[in-house]
């Protein structure tokens, strides 16, 4: 086992998949000589050459459409959005062409769009968004959002091997703020499986992405007060692992769902509905949510701090729930 960053885990997954499968190639802005805005593909051009590491013109709809076409011809394109915020420029190609193709024609579209997302970097409304729910709402797309280097690597490899279009949401804050061990050998993690990152019997905390770290910190604070929190890291947002969610909720009877995206029609709304339908008789308290408010992501520090959930805010919600 080796301790690496989340960024390095993503880099390794891409490298290994390109190395062993010549159908895999990369498309995106500034990913070649420059190595990508976050330096994920540094050294890839030298190793894999210009035909497999393609610097595109500034045209998201164009290069996502091209990825779809190449996927239909049997390639395995991995697209890098420079920031997840610009994925909306390719929205039509993703939700109409990629997402619906297999349903209509039974022909697979094996491709990945990597979307560097999320806040806490003072990057304002256009470089901080969490667009995952847009895509969960579009039948035909899988959506992945890992929280640790181990998950990031195993899930990216699985996403590349999956025969469907996958939106792979990689949290920018975690790039350098999440470190962890990954096995030195080859491994792949299945899509669609949540993981209990911490066992507990009193409250279930369901979250994903950068909020997992914050949730674990909050859970430790609660533990010191005698309240044991079970943290379910979703890892994949579609398909949703309702089995793991429900098993935990049935055990604890109390649930807090946390996400960095705005609340209205977010992932949390879907999870709360599933719990209400499937575990109603097991509930000891209303299902609670802690999310960003229904506003764009603000820039200035006091505003962004207010906007984003964090360990302290999670702990405070957990306390309310414990005493319900």
């Amino acid at each position: 086992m080796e301790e690496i960053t989340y960024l390095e885990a993503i880099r390794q997954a891409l490298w290994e998949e390109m190395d062993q499968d010549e159908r895999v190639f990369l498309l995106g802005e500034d990913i070649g000589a420059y190595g990508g805005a976050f330096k994920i593909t540094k050294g890839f051009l030298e190793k894999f050459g210009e035909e497999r590491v393609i610097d595109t013109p500034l045209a998201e709809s164009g290069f996502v459409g091209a990825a779809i076409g190449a996927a239909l011809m049997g390639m395995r394109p991995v697209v890098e959005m420079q920031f997840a915020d610009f994925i909306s420029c390719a929205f039509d190609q993703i939700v109409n062409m990629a997402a619906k193709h297999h349903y209509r024609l039974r022909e697979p579209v094996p491709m990945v769009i990597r979307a560097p997302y999320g806040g806490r970097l003072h990057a304002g409304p256009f470089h901080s968004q969490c667009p995952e729910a847009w895509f969960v709402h579009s039948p035909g797309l899988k959506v992945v959002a890992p929280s640790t280097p181990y998950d990031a690597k195993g899930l990216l490899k699985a996403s590349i091997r999956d025969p469907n279009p996958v939106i792979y949401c990689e949290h920018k804050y975690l790039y350098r703020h999440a470190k962890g061990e990954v096995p030195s050998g080859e491994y792949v993690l299945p899509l669609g499986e949540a993981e209990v990152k911490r066992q507990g019997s009193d409250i279930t905390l369901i979250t994903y992405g950068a909020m997992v770290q914050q949730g674990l910190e909050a859970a430790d604070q609660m533990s010191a007060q005698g309240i044991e929190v079970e943290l379910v890291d979703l890892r994949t947002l579609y398909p949703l692992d309702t089995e793991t969610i429900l098993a935990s909720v049935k055990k604890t009877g109390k649930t807090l769902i946390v996400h960095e995206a705005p609340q209205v029609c977010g992932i949390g709304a879907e999870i709360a509905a599933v719990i209400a339908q499937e575990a109603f008789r097991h509930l000891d308290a209303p299902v609670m949510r802690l999310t960003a408010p229904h506003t764009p992501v603000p820039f200035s520090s006091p505003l962004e701090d207010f906007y984003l959930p964090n360990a302290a805010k999670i702990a405070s919600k957990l306390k309310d729930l414990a005493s319900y």
Partner: protein
Amino acid sequence: MSVGTEDLLKFYYYLLLTRGLEDRVAKLYRQGRILGGCYVGSGEEAISVGSACALESRDVIAPSHRDLGAHLVKGVQPKEYMAQYLGRRTGLTRGKDGNVHFGDLSRHIIGFISPMADGIPVAAGAALAFKIRREPRIAVAYFGDGASSRGDFHEGLNLAAVLTLPIVFICHNNQYAYSVPLSRQMAVPHVADRAKAYGFPTRIIDGNDVLAVYEATREAAVRARSGGGPTFIECETMRMRGHAEHDDASYVPRELLEEWRRKDPIQRFERTLREREVPEESMRAVQVRVLKEIEDAVDFAEKSPLPDAHEALEGVFAT
């Protein structure tokens, strides 16, 4: 058309103010005193200043991220710009957004957003409103060479052409889009070659000559205002620094930068001022005024309050 001394000094003032403010912000960035990223238009000031100075006060601009000069000409105050960078409540977005992402319709500026080229069809829409209401106003859209690869660029240009809208398109062709050189952005030598397809006049001019930009924009504005429809002006220039201040631009050949450094728009304009016998004292007075305004702006911004946390919830909807 002859430009008098007063106008020349006005151009000089805005050129120096733009350069000075951006240099100051870049320095604050290096000192870790601003939030987030830092974008400057060093070496491209003549495009923004020359074009904006050619407009009537009620003409509307949709600037991009290297157009501080046009904002200033339209009346944005240096202190508002600094406050924006420092995330203060006194910035034009009250701390909601940062750096060059601001605007103000009361000063006829359509606020810039990050996705490249989004402002182009929006500027066309402003021009459409003027046309419908028969107002003698025009719109100006600014963008880079990279932005011209996006669909919104092509859709905006075509719409403006078909509807004969009073609009001028101004392209900063600074040879790069982040790390991507022009030759990898398009397979034609000029951005104007793309615009030609839409059926209105295009021009390619020296973007480092403020007078050339001014003249070209004036001509295009006359045409637009008199019902002649759009004009496309490609201003040739060079991005003299990194894409943003975090980027050392090591992918740009040094000789290319050296070549363009010799064409610096401000030094060139200073030579023009001397040739036209603008008094040295007048030039010095502008320099002194600019320095003072910049320091006052930093001072103002640093003394301005940050927004209160709950202000995050304000303003999502109009009332």
